[in-house]
């Protein structure tokens, strides 16, 4: 029983650390679309001070991380709470302070302090501005747990019967549909991406491989009670950024642009170098 309990506590702690690593990875590794092992957390058995206490604390930590992972925007104060819990267990990894700094860096952006708005919620748009919507239309919605932006292309694998039907209807219309985020509770976000199908391959079993391009944003006005199996909404298209009020802000935004360009290229250059060398190593070249 004791061995089982000890094993369970270790599993719990490992799951906590996996959550921590995943949590920490989001600004760095996931931003690059790579799987790089930043750190492997090897738990020393000496860290486990009494299985029962560890189990209870472990559960608390798991729940805490689940809470942090589910609630956005993530804040440094949330991570502080998690770190306090880790400190109590005396199992802080050596570089945890550095990771904390990276989170504080992220906190500099006011965007992370905002909340995701959903279509069924009362409209509370703090950035409302006199940007008239170009048009209103009904739009079939492809509801997913992730986001896609305008000015990009991506592949969609359409396998659910309702979405196969939707894509056939889309092909018969103007090839446009909405890509929209859902948090898994049935709610859809208030803002999504207007997509256009640029390539379609229908497989023998009816599944479809679709290449789509993001061509703009839309705001959901009302989710319609349509007869179709898929979701249809009345939306406003042509949602644009708020014009910056004066030249000072324009200058600030431009500086940010340059910085983003610079950073993007740094990463690309670093990755290019890494892959080149890794590739050479696999072939015994220098």
């Amino acid at each position, binding site marked *: 029983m004791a061995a089982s309990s000890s094993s369970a506590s270790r599993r719990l702690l490992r799951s906590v650390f996996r959550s921590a690593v995943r949590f920490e990875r989001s600004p760095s590794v996931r931003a690059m679309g790579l799987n790089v092992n930043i750190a492997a957390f090897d738990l020393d058995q000496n860290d486990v001070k009494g299985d029962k206490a560890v189990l209870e604390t472990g559960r608390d930590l798991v729940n805490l991380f689940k809470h942090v992972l589910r609630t956005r925007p993530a804040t440094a104060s949330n991570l502080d709470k998690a770190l306090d819990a880790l400190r109590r267990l005396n199992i802080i990894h050596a570089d945890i302070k550095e990771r904390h700094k990276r989170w504080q860096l992220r906190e500099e952006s006011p965007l992370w302090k905002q909340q995701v708005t959903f279509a069924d919620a009362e409209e509370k748009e703090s950035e409302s501005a006199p940007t008239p919507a170009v048009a209103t239309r009904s739009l079939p919605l492809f509801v997913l747990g992730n986001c896609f932006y305008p000015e990009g292309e991506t592949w969609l694998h359409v396998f659910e019967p309702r979405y196969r039907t939707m894509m056939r209807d889309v092909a018969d219309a103007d090839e446009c549909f909405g890509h929209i985020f859902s948090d898994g509770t049935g709610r859809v976000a208030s803002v999504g991406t207007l997509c256009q199908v640029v390539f379609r391959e229908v497989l023998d079993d009816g599944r479809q491989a679709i290449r789509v391009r993001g061509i703009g944003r839309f705001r959901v006005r009302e989710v319609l009670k349509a007869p179709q199996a898929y979701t249809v909404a009345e939306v406003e298209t042509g949602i644009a950024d708020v014009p910056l009020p004066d030249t000072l802000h324009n200058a600030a935004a*431009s500086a940010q642009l340059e910085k983003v360009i610079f950073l993007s290229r740094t990463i690309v250059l670093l990755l290019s170098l890494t892959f080149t060398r890794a590739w050479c190593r696999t072939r015994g070249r220098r």
Partner: protein
Amino acid sequence: MHRHEKTKSLRVTPFVKAHRPTPDTLLDAARRERFSFSVANMVQTAEPFESQLLLQTRNSVHRLQAQRAVLTAAAGALAKRLLETGLLTEAERVAIEVRSREDDAAADTDVLPP
């Protein structure tokens, strides 16, 4: 090799190249918005809720600030890791930073091994 193959799509996209700032279009708000979204698509940033915040905000400065923070953390973490593993020297890291600041219209430095 399989792991390396998964990263082949990671490169500066045509959308980013098309909307990159030039002296003539530096203050073009529409271009800036398109650029920020094309960068967001390229880096596939973070968690879904964070991605949605990038999409729903109508403040381009906020979006760019957030992207800058993510990319700063990413570049720092990657450089540190490469230095630790010996794939990169400090001199090379500095050279890459300098090279990144240069305006390279071709932007073909993301070509991976053949």
